[in-house]
């Protein structure tokens, strides 16, 4: 009797199990939903979409869904979605302090262990992984390096040669070069004041040479204050350059594109930017001075500084994270998808977009644009990576750093005032 019941129960169980299996296999659609600031036919979404569609050809339960969000609305949108526990599987987010908030709320998937489990950890570039981990207090890897950038000063070789100038090794030399260009009637620097961060990058460059690449972590820890002497020196340079009109008239009315145009049309000689700009440099429609005319140097050394020229400002741009909750719904299927997409990502991005990523490139395409090649070579020599200025700031501190930088760059706010207000904002951030 009991046996019979058991058999029956077993049979029922088997049926239900099989049914569930077929049901889940047939009907359980997995949506690869990507919330991103890039357009669907460019950048990261383009590559991920293409790879996902390839994978979906074999696995019809995988569906692709793209959602655009303007960069300005990104923070707000992601925070709302996180509060409602409805983050999409993939989403863009700032890889510094904001991401750390989400990590603490257990909203984001840890990728180091996930990639190791999937056996694709070696696809990742260890250098950029280290940077991304340090950005979130070494709690783990929570962001995908879908691109990898190196930042520095791009310059117009022809303009330099015409005026007998060469790449500067020290900050003082850089200042001299700027002065000579200015005297010759050439705008030394192209800077987008509307974007604000191109201004603070210059301050950042100076202080990482002065104090080393971990300078901003030390500021957050309280070991350094942003109104210390080295910061004042840095801000003073910007203030004075602004006074001397090195950034041109109307720096604060200049947006990203037009500022870059000043450089690429030969109207400004030096342009601090990340290597993501290669996409535009390699486009002859935009680049009027020609690829062969563009040189690149690292942030020069400063007097009494500890930094070296092997250290670069390296970052992964705006990163993409994976929602923990969405992944946990179906770890196996999503894991398999990840395995396919991320073991092909590096190659595909290089081949189709010439994009340098934090993923291994197994087959280097035969024709790599000369500037891309140069950046790849430089990246191979990087000994230490620095953050950007605001990486560890919260939204409010970031806005203090940015907004006031505009005033610093036109000389209506003194370096002391600028740094004083910034330190106050940092203190308030830490008090929370």
């Amino acid at each position: 009797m009991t046996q019979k019941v058991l058999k029956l129960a077993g049979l029922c169980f088997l049926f239900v199990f099989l049914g569930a299996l077929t049901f889940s296999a047939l009907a359980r659609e997995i949506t690869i939903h990507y919330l991103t600031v890039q357009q669907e036919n460019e950048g990261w979404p383009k590559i991920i979409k293409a790879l996902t569609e390839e994978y979906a050809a074999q696995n019809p339960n995988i569906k692709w869904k793209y959602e655009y969000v303007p960069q300005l609305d990104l923070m707000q949108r992601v925070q709302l979605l996180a509060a409602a526990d409805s983050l999409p599987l993939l989403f863009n987010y700032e890889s510094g302090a904001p991401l750390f908030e989400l990590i603490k709320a257990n909203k984001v998937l840890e990728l180091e262990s996930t990639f190791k489990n999937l056996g694709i950890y070696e696809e990742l570039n260890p250098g950029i992984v280290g940077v991304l981990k340090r950005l979130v207090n070494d709690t783990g890897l929570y962001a995908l390096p879908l691109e990898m950038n190196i930042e520095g000063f791009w310059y117009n070789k022809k303009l330099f040669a015409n005026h007998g100038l060469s790449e500067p090794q020290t900050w003082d030399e850089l200042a001299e070069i700027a002065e000579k260009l200015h005297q010759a009637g050439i705008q030394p620097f192209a800077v987008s004041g509307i974007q604000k961060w191109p201004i603070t990058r210059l301050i950042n460059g100076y202080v990482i040479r002065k104090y080393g690449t971990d300078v901003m972590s030390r500021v957050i820890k309280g070991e350094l204050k942003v109104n210390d002497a080295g910061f004042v020196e840095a801000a003073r340079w910007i203030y004075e350059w602004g006074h001397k009109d090195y950034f041109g008239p109307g720096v604060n009315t200049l947006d990203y594109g037009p500022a870059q145009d000043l450089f690429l049309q030969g109207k400004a000689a030096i342009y601090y930017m990340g290597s993501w700009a290669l996409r535009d440099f390699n486009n002859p429609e935009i680049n009027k001075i020609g690829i062969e005319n563009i040189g690149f140097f690292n942030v020069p050394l400063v007097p009494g500084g500890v930094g070296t020229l092997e250290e670069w400002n390296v970052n992964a741009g705006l990163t993409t994270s994976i929602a923990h909750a969405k992944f946990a719904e179906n770890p196996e299927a999503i894991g398999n998808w990840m395995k396919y997409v991320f073991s092909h990502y590096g190659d595909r991005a290089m081949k189709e977009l010439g994009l340098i990523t934090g993923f291994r490139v197994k087959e280097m395409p035969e024709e790599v644009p000369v500037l891309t090649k140069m950046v790849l070579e430089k990246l191979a020599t990087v000994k230490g990576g620095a953050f950007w200025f605001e990486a560890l700031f919260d939204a409010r501190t970031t806005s203090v750093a940015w907004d006031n930088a505009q005033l610093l760059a036109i000389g209506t706010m003194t370096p002391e005032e600028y740094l004083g207000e910034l330190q106050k904002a940092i203190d308030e951030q830490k008090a929370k």
Partner: protein
Amino acid sequence: MSLLESGDHAMERILRDWKYVFFFVAPALILYSALLLVPIFWSMGYSLFDGFPISGFRFMGFGNYLRAWKDQDFLRSFWFSAKYALVVTPGQIGLGFLLSLLYFLVLKRASRLSVLIRTLVFFPVVLPTVAVAQMFVKLFEITPQYGLVNAILDVLGLDGWIRPFLGRGDTAFWVAASMNIWTAMGFYAVLLYSGLLDIPQELIESARLDGASGWNLVRLIITPLLRPLFITSTIFSLNGTLKVFDQILALTGGGPGKSTTPLTLYMYRTAFHYNQYGYGSTIAVILTIECLLVTGILSFFRQKTE
């Protein structure tokens, strides 16, 4: 007689019928209470807390208000809003008044020219603010090309005046102020003109016969008669200028730095960019009190003049 009484009685009964009061007033009142009155108190509640939905809220008491008192950015925005209102409101009403005198004293009332000019001057009032602001951005641009203003300065040989008008706080303030005056003066011109039309024609004729003309006529007869309307206009105008948001956002985005950030924009940024709902609400409450106070004081003056 008795018919009328019973009629009054019936009227009373009908007009006091609660069902109909409910039918007419309730839909609007419910919507209004739910989406305007309740939020007002909700905001007042928020202003006593710190935080936002994802991180949770922490009771602060009046901590946010104390913080505003010491917050440089708040004080700067407050000062900007005040300065803006103090420049723009007199500008709008002053120029509006001059225009209304032009319509009233100079132009023939029903002439085509008069109608045309009134229509033209009023037109910017109805334009989308973002469109107007963007047009001004282009007017005052310096890079990559000169906008209209810098181009004209260039042609006139006034090179010294060419500047990034929107790239510096002081000039950006004046651009913002003149844009608002340009937009709104036509409205006040028509409003004050309608007041002028109400002045009995005999009054003006007899004053003219007494030898008052031009300036004296305006000073002694017209201005005192228009005083209540001036105060109404001021209330109207201050309500716009103290709450200015769209135009500034689209013109300068509050910059450079925060030099053209009014309280309204600072509140918006605090709440939606810095995720400080509590402090954002505190700024909103202060702004509300400011508006109510200004309106209250002016209404008091109006009642006194009437």
